[in-house]
């Protein structure tokens, strides 16, 4: 399983791990969405610290959760993006959604 979901201070935190591609993104999405739709958290955090590989399916995963949280009236944060994923994240422009949170900025 490439996602572990926990709750802390009202926020839902999804710790992603391993390789995110179109195949694994599907399970990850299902897991996160069922929890978010049940709990309606004010904040959903996607923690990328344990992600070893990611293609544009990971970007789709972020954009899709952004839309879901807008619908649910909450907000999305993308946290702990490791250096090796910065290139695809910046190419994607998801930064413009205001979801990227870096250490020290909390």
């Amino acid at each position, binding site marked *: 399983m490439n996602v572990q979901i926990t709750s802390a201070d009202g926020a839902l935190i999804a710790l992603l791990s391993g*390789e995110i*591609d*179109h*195949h694994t*993104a*599907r399970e990850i*999405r299902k897991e996160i969405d069922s929890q978010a739709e049940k709990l309606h958290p004010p904040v959903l955090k996607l923690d990328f610290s344990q992600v070893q*590989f*990611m*293609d*544009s*399916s990971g*970007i*789709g*995963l972020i*954009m*899709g959760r952004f839309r879901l949280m807008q619908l649910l009236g909450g907000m999305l944060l993308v946290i702990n993006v490791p250096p*090796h994923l910065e*290139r*695809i994240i910046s*190419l*994607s422009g998801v930064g413009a959604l205001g979801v990227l949170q870096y250490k020290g900025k909390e």
Partner: protein
Amino acid sequence: MKPVNEMQLSFDSKSNNESFARSAVASFILQLDPTIGEMADIKTAVSEAVTNAIVHGYRDTIGTIYIKSQIFENGKITIQIKDKGVGIEDVPKAMEPMFTTAGGERAGLGFAVMQSFMDNIRVVSKQDKGTTVTLTKYLIPRVLSYDKR
């Protein structure tokens, strides 16, 4: 120029073969002693092209995906990803960043990633015949540990 090494691969268009496909290409490229960054670039680009063949090329059917990779003397690598699926109507439009016909969870960034992470991309497609994407990358010059035997 003749390649110094070549491999071909084919497999079912099932999504659990995405990781297999990029790992197999990575294992082939390993003999050129790439940097970790070069390896990540190649794996990501291959993952995009293979996913496109599965998601768009063959849509709800299962077909065969063909990969051919060649290594040249000067550190040039080509990787061809081919499907015999529906093809692309308008290639230049399909290659625009954020353009997607799938909607939902597709970001429309597959071609943008391939373009940015590789040195060259060529797309040949014919409707109802299929699509061939050829990716090229030049590994940064170094003392190659590559053994010609």
